[in-house]
């Protein structure tokens, strides 16, 4: 054996088939031109791809008439929000930055306390890279928006919000590491929950809800509906599995009725039919009605998704929880529901993304001045009328929606990995 190995000369003919050879030519041949058919497909689809890229780049940088966006950027983002109160929006954005940073830091602190992550981890290159990988897409889009804006306000707001977020992230762990009693914990949770509610009233007392508009309104509608549909959806899912016949029937009928109606029809109904039952002075504002419809609609879908999750939890889990003496409520809260929700994260996020995109329907069905309607309306302005600019404005709206949806999707995948779905 050793003899042959030593005496064997470096075989020149063999090198051509050496599987470990590298280089662009080898890579090309192996991946794109392995057979004549492969080569043909590569050439055809390569040409189509190049052509598409060329057309896109050409559209974005040469033929596209983006003036309509630049001029109307403010309308697209915040609608007809009055000038004098814009400062309140800026304050809100900065405060939300601090709030988000604080929560991230707070969670980190709690994880450190429970020993899941090491204390006071240093800011390494790996973590920096991780943050860049997570946030580069929204960051690029925000930068694009800032570059399009004609005033300094957005720049200052964004800068301050970033600083506030970093500061919140730095302070958060101190609070997260605390071991407060039940009263202290309740206080902290209440304080965290009170911030967005307080900010809402801070803004809405100055500018009524009906005067909100633009992409801000889409985000707000979706966020409210997401937060509100969860409790309702969970209750409906549990109700449909309840042993009490009345509860089961009510939940089932609700779910099937709501899922059987198109969202658009429900929005129209809320917009028109509500007037038949409620006097105008008592009727809630259009945007509020939209939130209610989105909440009720999404809750029905969420209920079915959660029910699927509940069914995926093995019976042995219920039995072990029972055998431990846990009450039915405790079995659900500590054992069954956490596993059920974790098992259906992809479906849940899909539903929430769908809800976010469906907020555009409120513009068409109810006349709410959200992003899509603004995009249409601005093409009718005097200086842009009749120029077929709808492609530009719709592309812009699509970019914003896609950015947020894709970010949600990626964050959900991250959450799945961290919670270890599929690695029981």
């Amino acid at each position, binding site marked *: 054996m050793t003899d042959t190995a030593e005496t064997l000369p470096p075989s020149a003919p063999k090198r051509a088939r050496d599987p470990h050879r590298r280089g662009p030519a080898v890579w090309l041949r192996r991946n794109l031109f392995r057979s004549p058919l492969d080569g043909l497909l590569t050439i055809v689809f390569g040409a189509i791809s190049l052509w598409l890229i060329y057309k896109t780049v050409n559209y974005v940088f040469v033929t596209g008439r983006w003036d309509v966006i630049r001029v109307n950027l403010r309308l697209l983002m915040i609608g007809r929000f009055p000038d004098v109160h814009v400062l309140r929006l800026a304050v809100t954005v900065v405060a939300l930055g601090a709030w988000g940073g604080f929560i991230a830091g707070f969670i980190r602190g709690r994880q450190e306390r429970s*020993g899941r992550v090491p204390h006071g981890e240093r800011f390494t290159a790996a973590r920096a890279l991780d943050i860049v990988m997570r946030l580069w897409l929204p960051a690029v889009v925000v930068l694009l928006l800032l570059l399009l804006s004609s005033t300094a306000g957005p720049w200052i707001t964004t800068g301050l919000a970033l600083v506030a977020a970093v500061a919140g992230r730095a302070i958060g762990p101190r609070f997260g590491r605390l071991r407060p009693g039940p009263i202290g914990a309740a206080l902290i949770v209440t304080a965290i929950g009170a911030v967005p509610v307080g900010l809402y009233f801070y803004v809405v007392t100055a500018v009524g809800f009906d005067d909100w508009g633009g992409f801000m309104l889409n985000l707000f509608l979706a966020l409210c509906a997401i937060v509100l549909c969860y409790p309702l959806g969970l209750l409906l899912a549990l109700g449909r599995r309840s042993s009490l016949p009345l509860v089961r029937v009510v939940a089932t009928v609700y779910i099937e009725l709501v899922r059987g109606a198109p969202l658009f029809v429900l929005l129209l109904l809320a917009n028109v039919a509500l007037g038949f039952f409620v006097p105008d002075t008592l009727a809630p504002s259009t945007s509020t009605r939209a939130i209610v419809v989105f909440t009720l609609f999404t809750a029905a879908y969420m209920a079915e998704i959660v029910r699927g999750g509940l069914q995926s939890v*093995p019976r*042995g*889990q219920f*039995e*072990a*929880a*029972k*055998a*431990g*003496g*846990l*009450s039915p409520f*405790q079995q659900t809260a*500590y*054992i069954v529901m*956490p*596993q059920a929700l*974790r098992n259906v994260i992809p479906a849940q996020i899909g539903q929430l993304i769908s809800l976010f995109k469906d907020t555009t329907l409120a513009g068409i069905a109810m006349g709410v001045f959200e992003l899509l309607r603004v995009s249409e309306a601005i093409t009718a302005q005097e200086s842009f009328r009749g120029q077929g600019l709808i492609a530009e404005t719709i592309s812009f709206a699509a970019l914003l929606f896609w950015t947020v949806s894709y970010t949600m999707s990626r964050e959900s995948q991250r959450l799945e990995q961290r*919670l*270890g779905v599929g*690695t*029981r």
Partner: protein
Amino acid sequence: MTDQHDAGSPGAPPVYADATVMSGAGTAMIELESVDKFFDDFQALKDIHLKVASQEVVVVIGPSGSGKSTMIRCINRLEEHDAGRIVVDGIELSNDIRNITEIRRETGMVFQSFNLFPHLSVLDNVTLAPRKVRKMPKAAADQLGMDLLTMVRIPEQARKYPGQLSGGQQQRVAIARALAMNPKVMLFDEPTSALDPEMIGEVLDTMKELAASGMTMIVVTHEMGFAREVADRVVFMSDGQIVEVGTPEHFFENPQEERTKLFLSQIL
């Protein structure tokens, strides 16, 4: 009592089939009286009488489908019995949810498929019930949990999740979890049947230590070595009935019933 044990009176079971004679003295920790259980038309338990004394270890054997698991699952109301009485430590099992909860707090159960909570760490698996049911403070519960994990010899795994442990380790965590409520009775439902052969020993050793510490135990198992070594009494069930009861010596050396002999000849 004595009348019932009179082998001469008509209708009374032969002595070797009377499971109400406890091996220890004192009052019964668990008492089953005329218990019937149906799954639709199928009768899973037929007129079961069984008494288990405090600190007694009863091993239940029998072919699959004979009602062994159903019997012990009735004791903590994972299954509802249809007739008869079940009394645990003086509390009669009724439809009153308070009675059921009370009995479940006094009985620990270990399942064939472990049934650990996959989303909780090993330590949290052990401490969940004491914290939520007994309202024990977290620090005290963690201390208790670590003590129990030390007892089953896996304290170093406390921070891991069940999915990261071997089958034998998981079952030992399940035993620690069941002990965390400081139960008076432990029910084992084929605790080693889902384990790889090389891991059966470690779980049986833990159970032996538990038996030696004076725990009252009912063990459904196919491990005849364990039955021979640890059991105070062995109960043989077939077709939903208790066929024969006796000490391990009686059982493995001098079985009386044909069905017992047939079963033992098949597995030994």
